[in-house]
């Protein structure tokens, strides 16, 4: 009964298998798999490719980082000079001190410049890379075949485009400081050893202790961090579902139950985060203790060396400075651990999308369709979605230029597959499809799309004005063209009755319009696009008869002068077609005009005589019966 069963897969599962294959879509398992690694070489490597365009800039930034680190390192050294100069009583020299102060000023000005260059370049580049990553994913999604898109929920893709890219942002933000931290760490180690290698090594020995402690701490902390992330995704999932289903929730008076369930999830989320917090905080006293120990070493050993005359006081002060700075980067690197972990998991998910192969591509030297006559021809087409399960078998037919052909048949007979193939959403297994005499695989997809229009069953509208929706991507269409198209499908009337006419903004997916109105707009959109060939999938949901009549009339003006293949559900549409192709189980059963088919008394006649509003309505068993009867006679 749980609202969001989280099928969280075993963390140990190898991330190597690529579930997002060409036909796999993005499934649950992949989405929910939790990756433990805070550093995955392959992901980082691939990620580095996104840096390539910014090489020059990053090189500058790198120089700035080095300069920045050097200035950071030299500040204690300048202080040491000052102290040692001021200390040696016989050469106390005020002028020299002024010079040193000037040097200090020089160093910090350099520090300012280097820091500014480094942080702005790295910060901006990181931000740009995020947009690049998002764009790369998005472009890739635009090119993927429909078979992938069909199987993948929009919500899940959006999660990758948003949350995963967002996780990278956090990562890049901290990386800016992390890189500096690591360099500084290396620099400090070098300077300490150069200043006095005995004291240096002794001081650094505490780092060894830290490494050992971390080795014990890591596996435990990792588990806690992972759990915290899981509970977050559960809470967000539950929230998302309730937002999308809020109307149903209110109708069913489920508010209280859902709230209680959400409370449990949120409480679990709180607990797991607090536990993770304990793990990350426990490192603080350890690091601080070790800092104290290192300083104690400097004081006792270094102090004695000063007393013994083998160490300058200035060096001791410099050591103190370095030791204090030394643990800052270590501390922040510890905190960054979970950020890194999250980024690796997100990176993995991002690359999974980018790695899905594009299986429909333009041939090299593909032809751009220009002036064509609009004939459609299918030659021996066999096709299916799953290997070994063809949904179309050896389909042959031709639609002459200007002809309207209706495809009829029960659900699953292959009508939609035929229209999808003509638009090359998929490639045929066998045979070929010709549009205007050209094999669709020999022409560019873009030019094919400009010749072959499509009106879908579900009229999808975009946020924007009615004008923008009708015009859509036809750049050259004028306002007059849009109005003319709206008039042709008789939508002009209702549009002008709206408060802002053509400039009325459509709410989420055109929610402020009725289904029939949305349909008319999608017709108008197709008229503006003005393609030679039109593939039309009639809506199945019955609309009121007024709109129905309006749509039938609109259809007439839409189809006039075009080659049309209509997946017809309405008998009126079927009767109006020049020719009817009856499909059943992926094969053409009958072809002819309404009159011819009625006279033939075959499957069409039988189905027609059953008086269903649409062939889609007819229960399967009746069709099976009818088909059997027909083939028997």
């Amino acid at each position: 009964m749980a609202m969001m069963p989280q099928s969280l897969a075993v963390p140990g599962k190898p991330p190597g298998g690529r579930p997002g294959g060409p036909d796999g879509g993005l499934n649950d398992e992949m989405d929910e798999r939790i990756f433990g690694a805070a550093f995955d070489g392959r992901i980082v490597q691939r990620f580095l490719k996104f840096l390539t365009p910014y090489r020059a800039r990053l090189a500058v930034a790198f120089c700035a980082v080095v300069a920045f680190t050097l200035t950071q390192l030299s500040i204690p050294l300048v202080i040491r000079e000052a102290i040692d100069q001021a200390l040696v009583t016989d050469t106390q020299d005020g002028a020299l001190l002024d010079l040193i102060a000037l040097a200090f000023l020089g160093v910090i000005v350099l520090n300012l410049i280097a820091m500014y260059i480094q942080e702005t370049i790295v910060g901006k580049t990181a931000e740009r890379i995020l947009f690049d990553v998002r764009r790369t994913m998005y472009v890739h999604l635009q090119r993927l075949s429909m078979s992938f898109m069909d199987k993948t929920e929009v919500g899940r893709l959006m999660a990758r485009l948003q949350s995963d890219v967002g996780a990278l942002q956090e990562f890049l933000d901290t990386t800016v400081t992390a890189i500096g931290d690591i360099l500084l760490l290396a620099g400090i180690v070098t300077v300490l050893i150069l200043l006095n290698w005995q004291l240096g090594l002794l001081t650094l020995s505490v780092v060894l202790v830290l490494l050992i402690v971390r080795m014990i701490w890591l596996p435990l902390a990792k588990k806690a961090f992972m759990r915290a992330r899981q509970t977050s995704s559960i809470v967000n999932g539950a929230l998302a579902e309730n937002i999308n289903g809020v109307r149903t929730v209110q109708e069913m008076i489920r508010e209280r139950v859902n709230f209680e369930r959400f409370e449990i999830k949120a409480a679990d989320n709180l607990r797991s985060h607090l536990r993770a917090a304990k793990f990350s905080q426990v490192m603080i006293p350890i690091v601080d203790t070790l800092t104290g120990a290192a300083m104690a070493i400097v004081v006792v050993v270094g102090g004695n060396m000063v007393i013994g005359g083998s160490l300058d006081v200035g060096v001791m002060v410099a050591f103190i400075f370095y030791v204090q700075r030394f643990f800052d980067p270590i501390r922040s690197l510890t905190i960054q651990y979970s950020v890194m972990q999250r980024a690796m998991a997100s990176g993995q998910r991002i690359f999974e999308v980018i790695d899905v192969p594009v299986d429909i591509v333009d041939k090299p030297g593909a032809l751009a369709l220009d002036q064509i006559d609009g004939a459609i021809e299918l030659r021996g087409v066999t096709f299916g979605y799953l290997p070994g399960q063809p949904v179309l078998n050896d389909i042959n037919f031709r639609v002459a230029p200007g002809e309207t052909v209706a495809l009829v048949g029960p659900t699953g007979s292959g009508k939609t597959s035929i229209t999808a193939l003509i638009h090359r959403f998929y490639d045929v297994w066998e045979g070929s499809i010709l549009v205007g005499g050209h094999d669709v695989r020999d022409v560019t997809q873009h030019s094919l799309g400009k010749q072959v229009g499509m009106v879908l069953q579900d009229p999808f509208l975009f946020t924007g004005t009615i004008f923008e929706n009708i015009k859509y991507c036809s750049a050259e269409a004028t306002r007059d063209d849009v109005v003319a198209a709206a008039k042709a499908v008789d939508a002009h009337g209702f549009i002008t009755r709206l408060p802002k006419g053509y400039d009325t903004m459509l709410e989420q997916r055109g929610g402020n319009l009725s289904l029939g109105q949305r349909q008319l707009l999608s017709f108008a959109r197709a008229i503006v696009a003005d393609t030679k060939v039109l593939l039309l999938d009639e809506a199945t949901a019955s609309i009121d008869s007024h709109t129905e009549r309006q749509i039938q009339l609109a259809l007439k003006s839409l189809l006039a002068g075009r080659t049309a293949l209509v997946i017809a559900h309405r008998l009126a549409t079927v009767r109006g077609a020049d020719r009817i192709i009856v499909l059943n189980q992926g094969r053409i059963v009958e072809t002819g005009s309404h009159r011819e088919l009625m006279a033939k008394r075959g499957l069409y006649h039988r189905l027609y005589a059953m008086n269903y509003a649409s062939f889609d309505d007819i229960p399967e068993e009746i069709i099976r019966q009818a088909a059997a009867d027909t083939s028997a006679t």
Partner: protein
Amino acid sequence: MNTVVRILRMAARYRFRLGLGVVCTVIAANFQLLIPQFLGAAVDHAQSLLAGTGASPAEAQAALQWAAVMLLTAGVLRGLFTMIHNYQGEAIGQSIGYELRLAYFEKLQRMSFAYHDRVHSGDLMTRGMLDVEGIRRFVDGAMLRTIVLVILVGYGGYHLIGIDPVLGALALSFVPVVAWRAAVSSITLRRTWRALQERMSILTRIMEENLGGIRVVRAFAARAFEMAKFDTASDSAIVLAMRRIQIRYTNAAFMTFSYYAAMGLVLWVGSHKIIEGAITVGTLAEFLAFMAILQQPVRQVGMIVNSTARAFVSGGRVFELLDMDPAVQDKPGAAPLRLTDGVIRFEHVDFAYGEGEGASPALHDVNFEVGPGKSLGIVGPPGSGKSTIAHLIPRFYDPTLGRITIDGQDIRDVTLDSLREAVGVVQQDTFLFTATVDSNVAYGDLSADRERIVNATDSAQLHEYIDSLPTGYDTLVGERGLTLSGGQRQRLSIARSILLTPAIIVFDDSTASIDAATEQRIHAALKELTRARATIIISHRLSSFMHADEILFIDQGRIVERGSHEELLALGGRYKELYDLQADFGDDLGLAASAAAPEGA
């Protein structure tokens, strides 16, 4: 400013944690400030010996050891107290996040349809996830860190000024500069954050629509067009993202510089003072060590400012919803609905979507009554207001004028829960939750057993299909599960509603995707259920309610014709026209009439 104050107030309610956190912060800061003192002392001891003044080597060594022990102790204690205050900070942050998440969830569920019509679901999601997170980070990051910073600067500064006023003042000279830059950048950052958030949500919407309408995009070969759309939105967001970074890091660099400049001044003036003999080397070392302690916090000022700016924007977005009153809610002292017969009445009901100038009138002067065992059919062109009537009954919206009563009680005077329990609206489009078929059907009544569930699905003509599934009623549906067709979803919606056996049933065009024959079977199966109940059927398929006791023909929000099927046919008006149309266009009704001559028309 209110937003941040409000967040701070929320934090203030965790008195114990906050108190403990602040106390530990003070203690940790004190221990941290002790470290420079011990270091300074150690330097002095080592140096004094070298200078040939003061104590013997043995005494100096003992002093050094003492300083080392103290340093270690101070380090350990500082770490422990820091751990406690950090943990308390995070605990407060997480608890506030938890509280906000619950409050947000609760409010969201109660907001009326009008709100959900207006606000994009993606936007609600962003607020519930990212904005709550932004507030949480402010609490555990910025809030306590600011306290640490103030204590370190304040207490440490006080101590240093006590030792040497001039050097102390110099050491703190960067504070006003940092404060000034922080204030300025916080204002600009806040503006940028808000604008950036808005542009990002536009980008999100563009991506979401593109992916949702990918078939349209492909069908129109609109890839280039869509990419241009994406790039425009993306570029306009990048500009702001760049500005944010520019502001943030310019200020960070400036703050760090002012800090180092102060350190340089301390060094310069301090070493001259050493020459003059005014201070010891140890004192200078103490000053410098103190400044080294401040290095990290100064770097964090930028982060604090950034996260405060973000909390400001995020808080505003979250609190906006939390402060809103649902347009529809229980009156104070509302009593549960007392159901006697189950008579529903509309009395001169007017309704408009939206308010003020943008309001679009949807219903005008609607009157009707449906009693137990009676049925009402409603028909009319799209956008005529049919569905609006259905939405007014369970108070998804409230009428602008007139009233609706059930058994004589104005529905605005009774509790929402009791009202919605009495009214079952079967929607045209229902939402499937990611759960089993079983729990989706029993969504409104968790106590329903399998038998009742099967009864409901059986009446809705869905049982056979579910039963044919390999995992039957345990099959997962919804976003991650099995996809149901439009007709199947509608049947599930019907099953969901009739399982609850409401006193008044409204079918809101809920059979549009179900074929006429199946619909007839459903109505036949529901006969028993509807025998003693009021039923309202909204449909455009006349056969759905041909036998209803009364039929209303609605156009532009007004009832233009009313009567029984026969009366309306005899009237020869709009209804008759529609009836003839349906016959003409081969809808089931018409076909029934022309079945004898299938080749006709």
